């Protein structure tokens, strides 16, 4: 009994020891900055004047609610998320199904689909800016459209097409990662289930609906969750490709935070936006979790 108690105590001690490094990092890089953000959200902090920070109460929040650019950014962020999440997940699942077979040469495709994922987003964004160039003499995509006798598109240089252009290239870039997760999920589905299904007379499509999808349920939940959270944080693409324009069409929340804090140097206001953004993301994640758990 006694020795058991001592053992337990030392186990608890060890447990704390193991937790400490993670805890220290979490506190230093997540909790403290998050708390500072909330504190600065109530100040007029100008990045150039760290010595003259003044508490202004809810002034920033009042300004925020009548700030059209902010609401546009909220709208843009949601638009991006709502479109990109299903698009990217279906694309990833499709790719995973295509390469899950054990045919020869499939590993080449696996590497090809995954390769955008290991390339820096900045590099990819610059490349796609060139691909999307509105001048058919320069932009590959427009050259292709022109050679097919179709109308060329302004892509990133029109408020109507800019966000969709970013959505397409983002899904292309990121789908490889989700594909790998789906692939692992697919390999976890026992082959007997397919056998049984085919004996029962289920075709490929029915097998997909009744065997593959239920077998992937947990993987799908996970993939949707992380894709959504990543989509909410969209920054690099507008930063490199469009600078939030044209006409506000690609200004996302995170880009707006950067722009207010660093370019315009209104750090206090940027923190206000960040605080609201934090609440939005947390609420979305929690409600997503609830919805997913419910079924």
């Amino acid at each position, binding site marked *: 009994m006694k020795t058991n108690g001592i053992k337990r105590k030392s186990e608890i001690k060890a447990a704390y020891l193991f937790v400490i490094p993670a805890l220290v990092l979490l506190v230093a890089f997540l909790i403290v900055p998050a708390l500072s953000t909330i504190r600065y959200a109530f100040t007029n902090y100008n990045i*150039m004047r760290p010595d003259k920070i003044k508490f202004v109460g809810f002034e920033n929040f009042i300004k925020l609610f009548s700030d059209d650019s902010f609401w546009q950014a909220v709208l843009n962020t949601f638009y991006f998320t709502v479109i990109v999440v299903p698009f990217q997940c279906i694309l990833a699942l499709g790719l995973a199904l295509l390469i899950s077979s054990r045919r020869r040469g499939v590993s080449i495709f696996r590497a090809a689909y995954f390769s955008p994922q290991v390339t820096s987003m900045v590099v990819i964004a610059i490349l796609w800016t060139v691909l999307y160039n509105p001048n058919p003499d320069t932009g590959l995509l427009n050259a292709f459209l022109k050679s097919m006798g179709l109308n060329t598109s*302004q892509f990133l*240089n*029109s*408020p109507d097409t800019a966000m969709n252009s970013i959505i397409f290239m983002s899904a292309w870039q990121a789908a490889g990662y989700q594909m790998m997760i789906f692939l692992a999920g697919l390999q976890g589905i026992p082959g007997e289930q397919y056998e049984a299904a085919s004996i029962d007379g289920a075709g490929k499509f029915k097998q997909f609906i009744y065997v593959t999808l239920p077998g992937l349920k947990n993987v799908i939940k996970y993939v949707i969750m992380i894709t959504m959270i990543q989509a909410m944080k969209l920054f690099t693409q507008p930063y490199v490709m469009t*600078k939030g*324009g044209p006409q506000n069409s690609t200004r996302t929340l995170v880009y707006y935070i950067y722009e207010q804090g*660093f*370019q*315009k140097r209104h750090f206090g206001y940027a923190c206000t936006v960040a605080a609201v953004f934090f609440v939005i993301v947390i609420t979305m994640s929690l409600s997503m979790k609830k919805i997913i758990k419910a079924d």
Partner: protein
Amino acid sequence: MKKSMVKTMAVVSAAAVMSTGFTVPVMADDPVEVTIWSPTDEPAIEEWWVQKIDEFNKAHEGEIVLSREAIVRADSYAYEDKVNAALTSNDLPDILYVDGPNIANYAANGVIVPIGDFFTEEDLSDFVDSIKVQGTYEDELYALGATESSVALFYNKDMLDEAGLTAPDKLEDAWTWSDFREAAEKLTKEGVTGTNIIMDQGEGLPYVLEQFWISNGTDFVSPEGDKADGYVNSEKGVEAAEFLNGLIQDGLADIDPIEKAFHNGKSATMLGGSWEVATLENEYPDLNWGVTYYPVADNDGINASPTGDWAACITKDADVEAAGEVMNFLMNQENVTTYAQAIAKLPTRVSSYDTLTEYDEYPRSLFKEQSMETGHPRPRTPSYTVLSPGFSEAMMNIFTGADVQEELDNLAADFDEDYEMNYAE
């Protein structure tokens, strides 16, 4: 007795530890470290820095150790972001290179300190006015640079000949906006745009295009730098923006020109910087090109051309004496001359032109002439940090179909709000 002795000893040693901990004793021969931040540049300049730093360190051995960090600038605001981040964490260098129009902002916020005392009156009189005007905020000199810049209209001679056009070779005969547009119309053909007005989508827009406002009799902001409403969005300002927008909308200029479009014969003319002369000479020897004056507004517009360049400042936390010594070194006659030569930009010292005789001959003489006769530095206002990205954004919005008046009104309102909030007395 013993106990109290131990106590005193402890106190004394603690005090000793504390004193060494808080005030590091400065030995007479302990060298002061001075760091410089400046944008990453072409190989010739990078080499210049290595050589000059070496030279300085040898001459000041045991006193000052100079070093430089090259910061990537890209074509947006990456350099300024880095400086802002360093500000929040107190990691500023001692000497900071700043793009001309940002000087007022850093000065107004006390990030940089006046440097007038490090230069004699006589020495300063050798510098061209535009660089001193750019570096002055509220009657104090905060920055000095070795180079100036100018922008003029480069043209493809073959294409002009083909279209039956001749570019003016006297300042009085400079093309008006109508001439400029007409030329662009004649020069635009399959695969070639008539002109190129977008240097980059960041600072390049206000830098190059502000002159259209000035030439038309207005400016971005008031001469005091405290108001944009009634300037950038005035009737004359809207006219300027509409003229530029016409070039884009009618396909005479690209909204997103490729790198070096002019150099590769993809555009017949371009509003290009003085530094392009060297690039064209060295890297595009087959291109038959010329350069003419910056276009002037119709109906007796004002002859105007951009000026301004990166300049060195001393930051608030620097060892001012040592940093001043470095400034003196960087801005001495020889170094201004060699730096300007390496970077192929206009020198800021009048006496440098004695050595750089290439500026007496066309095409460089045209830039020298513009810089001395028609140069206008960008607005010297602490709210330039809002004006610059705001203007770039407004122009890109206009070019993609937004309402001109509305965009410029928004820009003016943003600027005025920032000024009121942060700098108004």
